[in-house]
């Protein structure tokens, strides 16, 4: 029914969650110790957005997907070795920090102006995708800010489902309080979707998709422009790893009845 969507996914890299993070004071404010050396992954919720974008594009002919990433170019290049095999997209790179401590306002400004410059992007067909929050800043604000800068007033946060209806309208399920969904109908593009987990498993690696993507990924990385993101507005007085170790009492070789009684008393207490 539709003549396709222009889906722009905003997503970058974050440290692998199994890494231990230690804060240090860098020249631009707080940073992570050995940040450049930490193994990275695609920010998980942005990843879900990318897979949902690829799926939507596949089912709506004439659609196209871009992935717009702000991060250190060399690290993005590493990340692309795996991500490029997951879904077809064209990469737009902004060479800059991917730290959690940079301000979302500035990041959104940089992303929006990069999106404005994408050749051939038709804003009337635009679906702006991203994660509902990052694993670094965990603010849940960037995608909406990019949307606002692009003048889009139909926005959805923590989306788990997006369905194109027979009449071309969009039906959206957003997570709200108490494990409920809000169901909305949006007349059509342009619109903004900050994704939660969605409904798709991580796609398997497909080397053919990887080869096809790499044709545009390498030039995009080469021509990536450095962007300045400042944190001047923020004065951090403290960043620390909280004390988190508890003195765990391990209860072993104790009859089930006794354990159950202890648990019930604790619950009721």
């Amino acid at each position: 029914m539709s003549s396709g969507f222009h889906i722009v996914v905003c997503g970058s890299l974050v440290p692998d969650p199994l890494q231990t993070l230690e804060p240090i004071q860098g020249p631009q404010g707080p940073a992570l110790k050995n940040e450049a050396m930490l193994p990275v992954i695609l920010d998980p919720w942005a990843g879900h957005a990318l897979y949902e974008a690829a799926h939507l594009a596949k089912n709506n002919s004439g659609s196209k997907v871009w992935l717009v990433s702000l991060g250190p170019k060399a690290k993005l290049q590493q990340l692309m070795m795996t991500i490029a095999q997951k879904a077809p997209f064209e990469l737009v790179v902004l060479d800059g920090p991917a730290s959690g401590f940079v301000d979302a306002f500035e990041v959104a400004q940089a992303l929006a102006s990069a999106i404005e410059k994408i050749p051939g992007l038709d804003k009337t067909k635009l679906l702006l995708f991203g994660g509902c929050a990052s694993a670094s800043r965990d603010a849940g604000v960037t995608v909406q800010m990019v949307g606002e800068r692009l003048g889009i007033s139909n926005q959805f946060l923590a989306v788990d489902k997006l369905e194109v209806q027979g009449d071309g309208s969009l039906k959206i399920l957003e997570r709200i309080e108490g494990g409920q969904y809000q169901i909305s109908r949006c007349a059509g593009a342009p619109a903004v979707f900050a994704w939660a987990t969605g409904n798709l498993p991580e796609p398997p690696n497909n080397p053919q998709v990887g080869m096809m993507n790499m044709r545009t990924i390498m030039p995009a990385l080469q021509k990536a422009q450095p962007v300045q993101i400042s944190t001047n507005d923020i004065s951090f007085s403290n960043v620390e790893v909280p004390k988190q170790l508890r003195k765990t009492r391990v209860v072993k070789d104790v009859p089930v009845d006794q354990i159950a009684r202890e648990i019930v008393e604790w619950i009721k207490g």
Partner: protein
Amino acid sequence: METVLYLAHVQHDGTLPRVALETLTAAGEISKNLSTSFVIGLVGGDLKKAEAQVRGSGASKMFGVQGEEFSHSRYSSDILAVEALVRKANATVILVPATSRFARVLPGAAVRLNGRIDTHVSGIKVTGGKLEIQRWYYRQRLVSTFSRAVRPWFLLVDSGIFPTWEGKGASIPMEILKVDLSDSANKTEVLGFESPSSSTQTIRPDAKLLFVAGAGWTKKQGDGKTHPKEAEAIILGFLSKTQASLGSSKSLVDQSSEGEPVLGFMSHLNQVGQTGSTPRHPKGLSTCCHGEEPHVVGWRFINERRAVNLDPNCGWAQGKTDVLYVADAFQVMTKVNELLNS
């Protein structure tokens, strides 16, 4: 001097949600510490009940944006309401309860008003006349305290930080602002609400106890077989007796897409952790869950923790819980249910 605006929306029944009443307490305390007064801004279909709930808060003025168009949680209309209220109050600091509705719209409003926004605010203090906030980075791994120079500064305050405002004392008059919606604001229509696939309501943010089920519940047990039906019965029995909120590990909720045995009432909405939620409950009981770091970061705001796992060397044993019971959760929870019944 700061001009503080407390901004809240009402729910469908016309009342303010709990987190909004907590943020109202914050507004009173912070304004006092900043030696300034604060203004209330309310949004919703009908603001009468909320007017009563905010009585005696010490606010100097109250403005409202009211009407059928504002009864729904929708970016296009909410942003106009928020913009009108912030401009009217001439606010420099805007305290907002972290609800899904305001989490959607406030970031855009901050851009529109050329301000800045911080979410998941877990602490606010005034030091030497300067406002400082606390929030977490890298999904509850690092905690930081900072201030900002740019105004207006929007702060989305998480629940569980401030006591609930009790609404006693004198009320002040509310001035209703007129906000016109253009046709384009109606491109989105809210159709209703839905529970995820299951018919059982298992997520209860206000519960005293979080009960987490891990993938062990659907794994092969000592007899070499899986027992998903038994697991379902035990877990649902426990939830109905305790009214606990049900959380899950990622592995358990991922199983449905991987074709493995599943617990029918579980969905990704139950998932706690790195790519799930970080709920706040006084107590948490983990069962059949290994307690790996990407899961346990979601337990940051669970005060008392206990875990039941067959493996004495599971993640919980590494200082992540107060008590680890090395035992079979099927047996333990069956007995717990019996005791709760008697």
